[in-house]
């Protein structure tokens, strides 16, 4: 069951940060970002999640902390309204409490969001590595969101102590640290992971992300390696399934 409050955090804290890598690596995205310099702040309810997307010199920066003076402020009275914006359907009411006139900024953001979706859903060979890297980061961040906010998953994750690392044998990695009080996601390799899920290459990882792979069979065939704390692996896997439900 999708919890709308958690989903809004997945969008703001796990999906939107993809814009940083996207504008860094995708020419089309950086061209779009170059059209406007400024910041947009998303606020859900009075005490819901917040996040600021700043576009400057063709790059995006996404920060959870609110910037002091955003150029555009979007207030969503209810998380469903923010979620509908990302889902692209249903009632998408946002009250632009600030910067109503900065239409260009909003248009740029919406074009960038479209481009992100295009890349994340693309089957092109050229964008494959980027897509894999985006998905790796998104996955770790989304797990961290669930571990912090999903009422059921929070309980399961609270038993975990250690670091899970996802990596592609030849390329990028991301990891989730469950050891501190709050679960934290980062890109890149961990210094001493307790559970490692390694994929032979990016296409395989992306197929796994699309839920098209018999992971355990691939592990036996040596194309995926599961190493270390398999119990942690099982609990992380529950989150991966949940992310699938959330972002379907």
């Amino acid at each position, binding site marked *: 069951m999708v919890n709308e409050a958690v989903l809004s955090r997945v969008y703001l804290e796990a999906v939107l940060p993809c814009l940083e890598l996207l504008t860094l690596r995708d020419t089309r995205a950086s061209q779009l970002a170059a059209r406007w310099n400024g910041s947009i702040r998303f606020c859900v309810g009075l005490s819901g999640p917040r996040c600021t997307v700043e576009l400057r010199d063709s790059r995006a920066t996404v920060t959870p902390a609110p910037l002091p003076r955003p150029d555009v402020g979007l207030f969503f009275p209810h998380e469903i309204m923010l979620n509908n914006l990302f889902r692209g359907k249903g009632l998408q009411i946002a009250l632009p409490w600030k910067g109503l006139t900065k239409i260009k900024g909003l248009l740029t953001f919406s074009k960038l969001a479209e481009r992100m979706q295009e890349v994340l859903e693309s089957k092109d060979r050229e964008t494959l590595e980027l897509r894999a890297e985006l998905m790796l980061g998104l996955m770790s961040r989304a797990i961290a969101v669930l571990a912090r906010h999903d009422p059921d998953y929070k309980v399961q994750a609270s038993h975990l102590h250690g670091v899970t690392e996802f990596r592609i044998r030849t390329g990028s990695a991301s990891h989730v640290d469950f050891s501190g009080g709050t679960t934290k996601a980062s890109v890149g390799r961990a210094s001493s992971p307790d559970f490692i899920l390694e994929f032979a290459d990016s296409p395989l990882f992306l197929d796994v992300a699309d839920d098209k792979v018999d992971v355990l069979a691939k*592990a*036996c065939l040596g194309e995926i390696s599961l190493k270390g704390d398999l119990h942690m692996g099982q609990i992380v896997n529950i989150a991966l399934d949940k992310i699938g439900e959330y972002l379907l």
Partner: protein
Amino acid sequence: MPYTFKKSLELFARAARVIPQGIPGHLTPVITVPGSYPYFAAKAKGCRFWDVDGNEFIDYMCGYGPMILGYAHEKVDEAYRKQARLGSCTSIATNLSVDLAEEITKTIDCADWVMFAKNGADATSMAVMLARGFTKRDKIVLAEEGYHGTQPWAGTNPVGITPTDRADILMVPWGDVNAFCEVMARHKGQVAGVMFTPYHHPVFADQRLPGPSYWPEMRRICDEHGIVLIIDDVRAGWRLDLRGSGHYFGIRPDLACYSKAMANGYAISALVGSERLRITASKAYFAGSFWCNAPEMAAAMACLEEMKAIDAPKVVKELGETLMKGLGERAAAHGLKVSITGPPAIPFMKFANETNFMRSQLFCGECASRGVFFHPHHNWFLSTAHTPQDIAQTLDAADEGFRVVKEKFGG
């Protein structure tokens, strides 16, 4: 010759195309240490099995428990074959169901009656239903990290379980009487039964034995609240005491579940119960197409007879003690800290200074490539077919395993 697994891998590639996961259920330890473990067995005899590539292993998993007298045991297998020639799945039950039930009621001290099925999960599910039927209550208390099969109420399956399936299941930590009492207080008059294993044998953790007052205390609380006390003896049964693990730990449960070692590898399970649950059991409808199969019952009869004749629990206990002691000594000689837990017949070893099992995976992989089949995160089993020579050979392989762990991890 170093062990290679070419044929295993080829076979697995075929398996993965036609069987989800390739090998459902028992994928570990293969999956944890790819390249160090065989995937498919070709034959087995005594305490050893040979994989499809011809590699030989001394087996400390014993089929995850069912093998207690040794693979391809002459007496048990002959009893099975003889009965199979007389008929297997007949339309009506055979005399063997009566003979076997009588034998079990004479053997297990809490068994006033017996109902047969095929798997451990059949027995545990029947027990849950009888507890509810007897008390006319809904809730069942289980222990966290306990395992009772893959049926929805048992909750181990990550797929396809709805909250409704588990709505009447209450979880408490194993061995925590206070937590149990709290649950009782919170659900006064609603708890039908409690199902625990006789001692705690979780995966990925040390095994824990009950303290002397634990089971008597549990019995007292269950009686006070009118709760059916169920012991899931599927894993430990027959290895600790032929009279039941309840007897071994000084407790008489109302219901107890058996399977695994009951017929040395043939598919049969049993739910046994006390007199006061007989009438409820008589009203239930439990059946399965193969539940009355006579050859498995003949195998169980032969297995029981042999376990009694050689005092199987004593044999496996002594062998387990030798193994545990030897492993402890070899690890210490390398300056490694291990924790070896559980009853000697069903021991488990993990490295004391890690929680991520990386040392265990390396150690078990090294042992496997030297012909010793251990599991990195699941308890092991001894059989009466293991010999002191097998254990000596095992300890030599383990010594090498410890050396490699020391080299890689330093401690």
